[in-house]
């Protein structure tokens, strides 16, 4: 074993072996995949040669919490929502403190912006739909993603599909959001609470789109809501989704499937049915609003006349 520990407890050089204390599985470090607030993620090789991702941290509690989430996600029916979980263990270096780690599926893919640059920006709409349908399944199961952001998503190949890679912020609906990134957080933009509900994730979807349109992000400004509205309008790449994004930003959608349906109709060139009760955007579609109530009123009138006649003449 040529394992060395640098100053930081969770730094490992390629070739180091991380051996579990409880299950005795050895993992050989190949490279560093990323560093976050909670520990580091390494690409490792398992004893059978399979490539896996290993997240290790001195914060045992946080690791345990994330493992709990991954276990919950594996129970959701259909395509896997997060990476699948393989092993959970402790690593006890000869010197230093106990480290906790878990081993999961290594999701091989490209970051979303990189993929779109290569294959065309139209794919973004498809990814939004995929993202929303994944979110719908998650919400149905009683969970909210929480820390949804561009960096937590990869595009896997054949066929191109988005996958979530970091699900550490996933929170039970009704609780307080466990982990968030300021730019993506509706509390920061003064557009809602930090309570875990579907609309919290949908707001993050809007910010994800904005982050893609403005890679350098932008300041909150004195009127956060106005800032966001302007940014959505000014982004040329987001033009096809503008109506939906603006609505999600304002917390209009109660569920992911509602946004999914509207976005789907936008993308397949149908008009978004405007809801009479809660018309938020003032756009060209307003004339449909006036025709529907007319039809409905006359229908009601017609039916009641009919009943009246029946009652009057036959009873």
């Amino acid at each position, binding site marked *: 074993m040529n394992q060395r520990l640098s100053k930081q407890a969770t730094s490992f050089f390629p070739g180091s072996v991380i051996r579990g204390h409880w299950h005795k599985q050895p993992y050989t470090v190949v490279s560093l995949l990323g560093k976050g607030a909670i520990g580091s993620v390494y690409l490792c090789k398992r004893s059978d040669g399979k490539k896996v991702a290993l997240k290790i941290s001195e914060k045992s509690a946080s690791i345990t919490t994330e493992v709990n989430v991954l276990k919950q996600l594996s129970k959701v029916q259909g395509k896997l929502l997060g990476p699948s979980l393989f092993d959970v263990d402790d690593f006890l270096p000869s010197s230093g403190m106990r480290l906790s780690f878990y081993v999961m599926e290594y999701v091989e893919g490209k970051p979303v912006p990189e993929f779109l640059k290569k294959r065309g920006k139209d794919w973004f709409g498809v990814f939004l739909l995929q993202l929303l349908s994944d979110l719908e399944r998650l919400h149905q199961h009683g969970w909210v993603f929480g820390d949804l952001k561009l960096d937590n998503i990869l595009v896997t190949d054949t066929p191109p599909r988005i996958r979530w890679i970091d699900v550490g912020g996933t929170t039970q609906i009704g609780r307080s959001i466990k982990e968030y990134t*300021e730019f993506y957080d509706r*509390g920061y933009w003064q557009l809602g609470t930090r309570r875990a509900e579907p609309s919290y994730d949908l707001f993050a979807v809007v910010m994800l789109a904005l982050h893609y349109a403005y890679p350098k992000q932008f300041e909150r400004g004195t009127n956060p809501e106005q800032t966001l509205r302007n940014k959505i309008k000014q982004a040329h790449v987001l033009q096809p989704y503008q109506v939906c994004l603006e609505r999600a930003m304002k917390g209009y959608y109660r569920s992911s499937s509602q946004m999914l349906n509207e976005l789907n109709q936008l993308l397949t060139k149908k008009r978004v049915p405007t809801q009479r009760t809660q018309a938020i955007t003032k756009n060209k579609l307003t004339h449909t609003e006036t025709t529907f109530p007319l039809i409905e009123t006359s229908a009601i009138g017609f039916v009641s006349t009919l009943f009246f006649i029946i009652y009057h003449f036959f009873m």
Partner: protein
Amino acid sequence: MRKGTLKQILLITDGCSNQGEDPAMIASLVAQQGITVNVIGVLEDDQHENPPGLEEVEEIAQAGEGVSQIVYQKALSQTVQTVTKQAMTQTLQGVVNQELKQILGPNQTVESLPPEQRGEVMEVVEDLGETCNVEVLVLVDTSASMQNKIPTVKEALIDLSVSMNARIGKNRFSIYTFPGKRKVVQKVIDWSDKLDTISSVFPKLTSGGITPTGPALKEVMYQFGKSKLIRSMKREDESTIEQAGN
């Protein structure tokens, strides 16, 4: 296990205490009363990560059995809420560890359990963190060098109440600054559920260059005692004491 109230002091300072008792000693004393002391050290934008004067930040938090972090102004909002939540988890885990020792023997802690069982224990800790009541007393250093940071501090505190009020459990906040006018600390806001009222009141800053961190910590320690009395009476009336755990 009875679901009690977690008590925290959140000290926001740029270090360099220079008057009165050793703040770390006071923090130990405060911790003995069941109150956690968390410390956030605020850096100047042109300062390095480990400037002199901020060493005491970590020491005070360790003595106060709390969490500390040193940050630039820009990151203050997010830090204030992570530090508060981390400290809550830490305290609750300490409580759970105590219980485990009673059940399983003196050498058992959450960490010494195999990973499978640890998961279940963490779920209990998380449940407690979500549902317990929390009292946070914010103690802000307003000595001359902190002057330009006060607007950011205000913003961070409002943000803290947004985070905390998303929880199921109840919260109470109060804010004190130091040094006060002819006294050690100055009350800015008395115990209340929300912090969105603070935009108006932060007292005019006193000059003179004294930073009596130790005495200020000692002074605010007593503010918990007062509120506890009132609250425990209220509690008995409403009989809202619940049992935690499964």
